[in-house]
Structure formats: C-alpha cells, structure tokens
C-alpha cells in the first residue's frame, strides 16, 4: 500500500482496524474526536461495531465486557475522559483482560484546556486507578510510529492479557504525516480459552476482579507482578540519537522528543555535544538504555510538557551518578527550541 497523508487521529483508527480491532466504545472529547468519527465510518464497513456510549464510565465497561468475550477492542479519550475511565481500567487489569486504550493528552488538571500536554505521565505509568497494577504504555513520536505501535499493541495486550495504552498528545492527534500500514511481525499468541464465549461443552469461564480471601488476592497480585517483571525484561524500547560522544543527554518522549531532536542539532552546531534518549515504552521504562550511554556524559536534561513527571524515572535510572536537570512547559504550552537550547547552554556552561 502506498503512503498516504493522514491525520494522527484517523491513522489511529485505521491502524486498529488493520490489527483486527472490531469493537470501539467511546465518548467524544477534544482533541481526539477524529478517532471515534473515523471508527464510526469504518467499523461498519468491516463488520465491526462502533458505539458512542452515554459516558466514559459506560464506554470503558463496554470495553471490559467485549474484552472478556475475547474480542479485539479499543477505546480512546483525552485526559479528563481517561480519568473517568480509571475505575474500569483497574477492573480490566485486575481481570487480566487485553484491550487498547488511547489517551490523546490535553492540559490539566480538571477540565483544563484542549492544547497538547504530557501531564498524564504519572497516571499512565504508575497505575492510574486503584490497586497494584500497571498498563503497558507506548509513547510514539510520529504518526507512522503511532500506527506501527498500535498494530503491535493488540498482540501485546493479548500476549500479556493486559491493557495497553498509547499515550499521545494533541499535536500527534491533529497533525498530518505520510503513513504506511505495514504488516507487523506476529507474536505467538495463546488461544483465548479464558474468554466468556458460551460454555457449551466446557466448564464455566469466570471473569472477575473480586477476590475476598486475602491469601488468594495476594497470590493473584504476585502473578500480575510477574507479568510486569517480564515486560521490564523483554519489552523496553527506546531510540538513541547522537549519544555516542554526548556530554549532555536530553531525555524526552513523544512530540517533545521531536523538538529536542532539533535542539540537539542546533547545540551541536554551536559545539555542544548533545544527544537524545527517547523512551518509546514508558512502562516498562527503558532503564537499559541508560546503561548504554558513554562515560562522556556529564549531565542529563529531561524535557517534558508537564511540571516534571518522567524526570523522576530518569533520576531513578541515573541513580545519582550524574546531575539530572529539568525543563518543562505545562498547561498546553509547547516548549520552543530556543528556550530548551537556552537551558541546555546554561547547564553546559553558557555560550561558547
């Protein structure tokens, strides 16, 4: 298939359909409305179901139901809507069901604004709802990467029986870039013999997140933790850019990472050896990437569209070996290359 110019939000919808998603339950919110719009048009064409629920709470529980029946199912929303979905997400994670959740982040807290932000990092990577659980979280930086990762996400969700979240922001949802839908390398997936598909000829399958006997619930929790451990061992992903001789490593993901890439080149023109570490998975966090950095690194600079969230994971990964600085804008403001460059220059000892 030839490359086509597509809006991020529409590309999300097409990628899901090509990955075999046939059910979408959602509720409108800016800046991701083109996702449900696209699904409402395309899903009936492929024999799927699009349903606009009466609320986000209803939508996520419909996802819970469809996932329990073994279907490939997706929902999408933006920050305040994702907050409403947290109870359902915790139930889905507790019940070990696969599904894909899209969060096209806008500035918060509360209703906040509609401009791009990355201020839901904690919510996405540290649980979000109640209980000891984690989502598998991808943070793509381009429309093409978002498409590739979504197509893989359905397999990952099935493989781990765990919800996968794609964390984008308003920029990624609204921008158009050339995109190509390529077949992904399929994982070896076990049959969904746990799904509630009608129990003719077999024992009942029960999908539930209630476990009143503490010993049983603890056992269940250790089982979940074992999955997250496997994710940490096998699924960390990142991109290193010009870090081979870097003295300043900038850490950024998603849209911000693209801006930082421009900054890296600008700094190098001025004689500052900068590089970029771009996490692609943010859970599991790519700690392994930090071990690959050269000894030349003198300092780290984390750049985010938040007041400073991922910077905590950077500090954990760096473990006090080097200073970790932070530069962020919040509320829907996108940091400019000029202001990031200025902070980087200050760290590296001013103008040269």
């Amino acid at each position, binding site marked *: 298939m030839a490359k086509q110019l597509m809006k991020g939000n529409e590309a999300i919808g097409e990628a899901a359909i090509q990955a075999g998603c046939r059910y979408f339950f959602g509720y409108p919110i800016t800046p991701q409305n083109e996702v449900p719009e696209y699904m409402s048009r395309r899903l009936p064409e492929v024999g799927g179901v699009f349903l606009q629920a009466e609320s986000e709470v209803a939508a996520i529980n419909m996802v819970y139901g469809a996932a329990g029946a073994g279907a490939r199912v997706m929902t999408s929303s933006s920050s305040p809507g994702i907050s409403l979905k947290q109870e359902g997400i915790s139930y889905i994670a507790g019940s070990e069901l696969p599904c894909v959740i899209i969060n096209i982040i806008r500035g918060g807290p509360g209703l906040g604004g509609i*401009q791009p932000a990355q201020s839901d990092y904690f919510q996405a990577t540290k649980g979000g709802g109640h209980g000891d659980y984690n989502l598998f979280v991808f943070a793509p930086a381009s429309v093409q990467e978002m498409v590739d990762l979504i197509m893989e996400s359905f397999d990952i969700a099935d493989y781990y029986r765990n919800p996968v979240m794609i964390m984008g922001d308003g920029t990624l949802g609204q*921008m158009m*870039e050339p995109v190509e839908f390529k077949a992904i390398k399929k994982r070896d997936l076990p049959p969904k013999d746990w799904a509630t598909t009608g129990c003719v000829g077999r024992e009942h399958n029960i999908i539930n997140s209630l476990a009143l006997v503490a010993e049983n619930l603890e056992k269940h929790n250790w089982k979940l933790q074992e999955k997250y451990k496997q994710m940490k061992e096998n699924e960390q992903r990142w991109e290193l850019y010009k870090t081979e001789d870097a003295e300043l490593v900038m850490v950024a993901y998603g849209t911000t990472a693209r801006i930082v890439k421009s900054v890296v080149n600008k700094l190098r023109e001025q004689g500052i050896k900068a590089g970029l570490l771009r996490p692609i998975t943010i859970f599991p966090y790519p700690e392994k990437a930090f071990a690959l950095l050269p000894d030349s690194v003198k300092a780290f600079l984390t750049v985010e569209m938040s007041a400073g969230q991922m910077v905590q994971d950077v500090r954990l990964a760096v473990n006090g070996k080097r200073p970790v600085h932070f530069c962020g804008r919040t509320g829907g403001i996108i940091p400019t*290359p000029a202001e990031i460059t200025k902070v980087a220059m200050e760290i590296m000892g001013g103008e040269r």
Partner: protein
Amino acid sequence: MAEMIFAGFGGQGVMSMGMMVAYAGMIEEKNVSWIPSYGPEMRGGTANCAVVVTADEIGSPIITEPDVVVAMNLPSMTKFEPMLKPGGMLIYNSSLIDRKEGRDDITVIAVPANDLASELGNTRVANMIVMGTLLAKTKIVGVESIKKALRQVLPAHRHDLLGVNEDAMKRGAEYVK
C-alpha cells in the same frame, strides 16, 4: 528545508493550501508534516496551519521561526510577520490587507488575491492565486505535484473545479513575473 505558516480566516482555504503543499511534498518523496491550529485561537480571526517540507528528518512539526508566511487577512499578518526568520518571505493578500509598514529584513510580496480571483470569475480560488505566487517565488514543490495533490484534496464530485484552480495558480505566478 522549508517551514511555512498559512494563515487567514475560516473559509479562505488556508488549511487546504497547506495540505496541498504537504501532499505535493509527499508526492516528491520528501518528508512532510502538516499541523493545524485547533485551540481557542481558532475562534477569533485566524485559522492557520504549519507545514514542513524537507529532504531531512522532520524534528519539530511545530514552527516557531517560519521561512515563509502566507497571510490571507490582517490578523494573520499581524500575528505571524514578527515570527519570520530574518531573510524569510512574507506573502500577503493585498486585496484585504493594507500593509503600511513592517520588517525590512524579509522579502515581502503583495498579491491582490481576491481581485485576481474575481477576474477569473471565482473569488473562492483566491488561495490558489497565492499558491501560484508561492510556487513561483520559492519552488518549494513543483506545480505538477500540486496539480496531482489537488486531485487528492478535492473530493471527486468537485473535480469540475480543477480547471479554475489551475488557472488561478497560473495567474498568481504570472502576477509576480
């Protein structure tokens, strides 16, 4: 590398102008990105989109120092002229904008887009007049690529308008010859 901002009020076709340039860049196998303004600034004078066309990898799709600004109305020019890179190019719609003074470190091109479009009998192709000017002055993408892109951007039932759009581009190019 070309970083461009297309701005005007809703209905002037600035979004599709940017989209066509992005399409044409893709047809020419360059890297492209197109991003619209979708925030509250949409509700008061200027709609705009940022387009990057380059042979290199695109870093930020968000443009803070454009090489080219196309301003179809006054609020757009007021907002984006100051952002232009020194040595950049401002193309403005002189049918609607009376530019009295401004920066002298940029190239400024005035096109009476609405008047020229009226002469062609269709004021709605004012954007394609400016497109013609833009292509003649910058060679960011080829005219033939834009013609192909036009077939993608215009829905099939509007393909009867291909002719007048192409005429408008020609007129916009001739005007600055």
